[in-house]
């Protein structure tokens, strides 16, 4: 019963008492009626027997068997009397008619008292035949007769009646079946009635249950109408109050959430603005620096091509070195901003590791020798899966840092296989990094050894770049270091199977011959234009330079179509470099090779160039790069 719902319980409550009552009443009344019938039959039998006894008194007294037989026959006519026997006072049978049940005892001597015997099918009634008493009620008779009162009973004989109980049994069975039938019928009726009437009870409860269910689903506006009275009303009211409370609490919660979200959003926007500001700053800063740097580099390159005195040669070298250092710094900034913009898409492929290590070492060897530290790498036959250029950048930055921060001792590049990955370690015996700083060194502009922010020591972007690149490539980066004991920077890269005919394209091409290449140059900065133009001329290119499209078109009027277009991105006037190139291509052919130069390191510029499918060089452009680009473009063209 514990798991029954309200409907079942109400039904039980309604049906069970009725059932019990029906059973009790049926049993009671059926049994009493059956008993009544039996009693009636017995009484009837006794009545007949007594009547017969009374009627046959004189006949028995006078031994008139014929009269007795007649009397007996008349009794036998009764429908359930099956046997009649009359015996006299000596036990002699005067009359025996019908059938007698032999399972019941019969008596040889007449009984003085009435008896009733019963077997399964028969009821036997025995009545004594007594001489009727005549009250001789005068004193004299009484007196006269008072002596010697008769000791003998006035018993004249017995009448025995056998009554069949078959009919009675049938009646009893009929009664029973009727009773049971009635009880079942009442049960059905009461069940139906209970089902109907229980709706009055279960209806409201189920209504409440449904409402509660809906409230549970979140519909706090759900309310119950007033149902019933007393407890039902209280229940409905309670549910409504609960819903109101829930709604209220929900509203509160929502409000709090909204408030928190608004605040978070505000913070996020703040953070985003900050980042954006930073990027813009970087872009602006680097762009503003690039133009002059670009020109400087070009001029210096051109200067280096001229003949100089020994002293002037040295000066030129120093200038070149300084310019290069500045370019490196600017490159680092550019890399960071590229990474920030998310426009760097690594082209991952398999390549041999050792050549990359050797190139990096080649770059850092001079510095290492200058600081009198050993720079070694363990030979490794492995090929790895990564972006070669970016990988070299990572390795280069790590080795550069190692060299810088090691005063004496050595820097070792070693590889160790870990399952299907290769762990490449750059170990140095330098100053080491204490645990507190091991997190922050990967942040931009953090230099642990450069409190005075000397530009000789770089900008502090190397590790930040390494961190972002390793994240981009999915290589694990780890650091183990203790102050005074050196550091071990390690990256994990997947090992690749060697590929035949691997393109060892590292971007360094043999400088080809550009003589006679007609190059169109558009730049609104006169200095830059001049510098670039001059450099191109030194490479024997035919240069047509202009500051905008109109001018250029005028200049190209009577010339042969150009081979390559090089345009600055930001131009004065309505058109930018893209539009200009587009216009020129319209004029001279859609497949005319073109390139963009920009001092703008912003993400938008990079994206636009990429979308247009144009190579983009950043100012300051290294001459070698420019040349390589021109070669490629002219090859392609």
């Amino acid at each position, binding site marked *: 019963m514990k798991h029954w719902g309200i409907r079942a319980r109400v039904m039980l409550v309604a049906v069970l008492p009725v059932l019990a009552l029906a059973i009790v009443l049926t049993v009671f009344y059926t049994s009493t009626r059956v008993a009544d019938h039996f009693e009636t039959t017995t009484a009837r039998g006794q009545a007949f027997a007594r009547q017969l006894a009374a009627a046959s*008194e*004189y006949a028995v*007294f*006078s*031994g008139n068997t014929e009269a007795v037989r007649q009397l007996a026959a008349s009794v036998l006519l009764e429908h359930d009397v099956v046997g009649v026997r009359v015996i006299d*006072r000596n036990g002699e049978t005067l009359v025996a008619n019908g059938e007698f049940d032999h399972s019941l005892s019969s008596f040889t001597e007449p009984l003085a008292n009435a008896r009733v015997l019963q077997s399964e099918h028969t009821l036997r009634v025995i009545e004594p035949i*007594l*001489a*009727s*008493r*005549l*009250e*001789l*009620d*005068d*004193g*004299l*008779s*009484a*007196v*006269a*007769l*008072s*002596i*010697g*009162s*008769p000791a*003998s009973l*006035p018993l004249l004989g017995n009448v025995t009646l056998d009554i069949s109980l078959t009919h009675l049994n049938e009646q009893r069975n009929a009664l029973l079946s009727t009773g049971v039938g009635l009880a079942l019928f009442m049960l059905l009726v009461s069940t139906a009635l209970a089902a109907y009437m229980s709706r009055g009870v279960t209806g409201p409860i189920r209504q409440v249950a449904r409402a509660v269910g809906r409230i549970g689903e979140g519909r706090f506006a759900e309310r119950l109408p007033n149902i019933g009275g007393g407890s039902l009303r209280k229940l409905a009211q309670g549910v409504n109050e609960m819903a109101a409370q829930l709604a209220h609490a929900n509203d509160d919660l929502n409000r709090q959430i909204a408030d928190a979200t608004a605040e978070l959003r505000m913070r996020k926007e703040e953070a985003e603005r900050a980042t954006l500001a930073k990027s813009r700053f970087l872009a602006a800063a680097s762009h503003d620096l690039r133009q002059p740097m670009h020109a400087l580099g070009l001029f210096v390159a051109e200067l280096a091509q001229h003949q100089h005195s020994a002293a002037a040669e040295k000066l030129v070298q120093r200038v070149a070195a300084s310019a290069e250092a500045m370019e490196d710094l600017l490159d680092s900034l550019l890399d960071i901003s590229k990474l920030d913009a998310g426009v760097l898409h690594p082209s991952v492929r398999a390549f041999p590791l050792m050549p990359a290590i050797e190139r990096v070492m080649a770059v850092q060897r001079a510095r290492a020798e200058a600081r009198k530290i050993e720079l070694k790498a363990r030979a490794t036959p492995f090929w790895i899966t990564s972006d070669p250029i970016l990988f070299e950048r990572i390795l280069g930055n790590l080795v550069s840092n190692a060299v810088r921060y090691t005063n004496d001792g050595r820097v070792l590049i070693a590889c160790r296989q870990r399952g299907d990955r290769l762990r490449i370690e750059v170990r140095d015996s330098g100053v080491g990094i204490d645990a507190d700083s091991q997190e922050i060194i990967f942040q931009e502009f953090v230099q642990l050894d450069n409190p005075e922010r000397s530009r000789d020591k770089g900008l502090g972007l190397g590790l930040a770049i390494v961190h972002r690149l390793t994240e981009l490539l999915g290589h694990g980066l780890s650091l183990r270091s203790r102050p005074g004991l050196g550091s071990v920077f390690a990256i994990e890269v997947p090992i690749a199977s060697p590929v035949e005919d691997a393109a060892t394209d590292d971007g360094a091409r043999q400088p080809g011959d550009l003589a006679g290449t007609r190059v169109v140059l558009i730049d609104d900065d006169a200095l830059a234009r001049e510098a670039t133009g001059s450099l191109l001329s030194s490479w024997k290119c035919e240069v047509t330079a202009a500051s905008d499209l109109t001018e250029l078109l005028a200049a190209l009027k009577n010339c042969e179509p150009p081979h390559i277009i090089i345009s600055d991105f930001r131009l004065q006037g309505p058109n930018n470099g893209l539009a200009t190139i587009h216009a020129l291509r319209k004029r001279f052919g859609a497949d005319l090779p073109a390139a963009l130069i920009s001092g703008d390191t912003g993400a938008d510029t990079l994206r636009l160039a990429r979308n247009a499918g144009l190579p983009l060089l950043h100012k300051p452009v290294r001459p070698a790069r420019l040349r390589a680009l021109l070669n490629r473009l002219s090859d392609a063209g």
Partner: protein
Amino acid sequence: MHRASRTAIAFLLAILTSALVAGGAWAAPALVVVVGERSGAHEETVKAMRDALLPRLADADILILDARSVTKAAFNGSRVVVAVGSEAAKAVSTEALRQPVLHTLLPRESYEALAAPAGGGRNSAIYLDQPVRRQMALLAEALPDWGRVAILAGPNSQELVARLETAAREFQLLVAIERITSDRDIYPALQRLLGERAMLLAVPDSVIFNSFTIQNILLTSYRSRAPLVGFSAAYVRAGALLGLYSTPTQIGEQTADAVKDVLDGGALPPPQAPRAFEIGINQNVARSLGITLKPESEIAARMQRRETVPR
């Protein structure tokens, strides 16, 4: 001397007076009547006795006792004792009394069954049984055509039946007798008796004639169309054609006469049958049986004449 003698005389006088008075108060009743029951026939008998004795004896002179609460002391000083009924007779006979005792209103059989008085006093009786000759006289006067009387004799009435037989012959009546020992034999005996036309005479033998058997005997006699002559009014009411009996009043008067004799100094009369009698007729039965009878008074007168006229 004067004062002392006066006191003595006064004292003696006082004693005498009180003795006289007390003696007067304690004067024993002349007649003590013991009754078996305080109702019915006994009451009637006692009343008749009283009425008859009235001039002679005052009510104060008669003490009536219940047979159940009889004590010896109660009889002291009385001159005669009357016992009414068999029960009283038994109660009185156990007391050893010196005064004469008259038993009345009981069957002869009962009286003769009593033990002899132990006290030396004589006793006598007025019993209920009618003289046999009177019974035969009734038969002769009431049903002169019939000429035959049937008698069922039981174990207690052998002697009586013998006397009846003798009396019947005197009256030129044929007698048929069946002797039976128990009520079982009644019917066959009756069949034999009443095979021929006869008058059935009831005898007070309780083995045969009792309240259980009377109905069937009546029916049997009725079916044989034989008139039953009974010995009480109840029989007549029950269905007997004729009844011969003495009422308690008559017996009471007779008892009173006997008591008067004794009080007058005479002796107790010998045990006797009742002097006065009554006849009862059931007219319905007479009609059913088709018998015409002379009126009762006439029959009674004629019977009376027979008794008084010497043979």
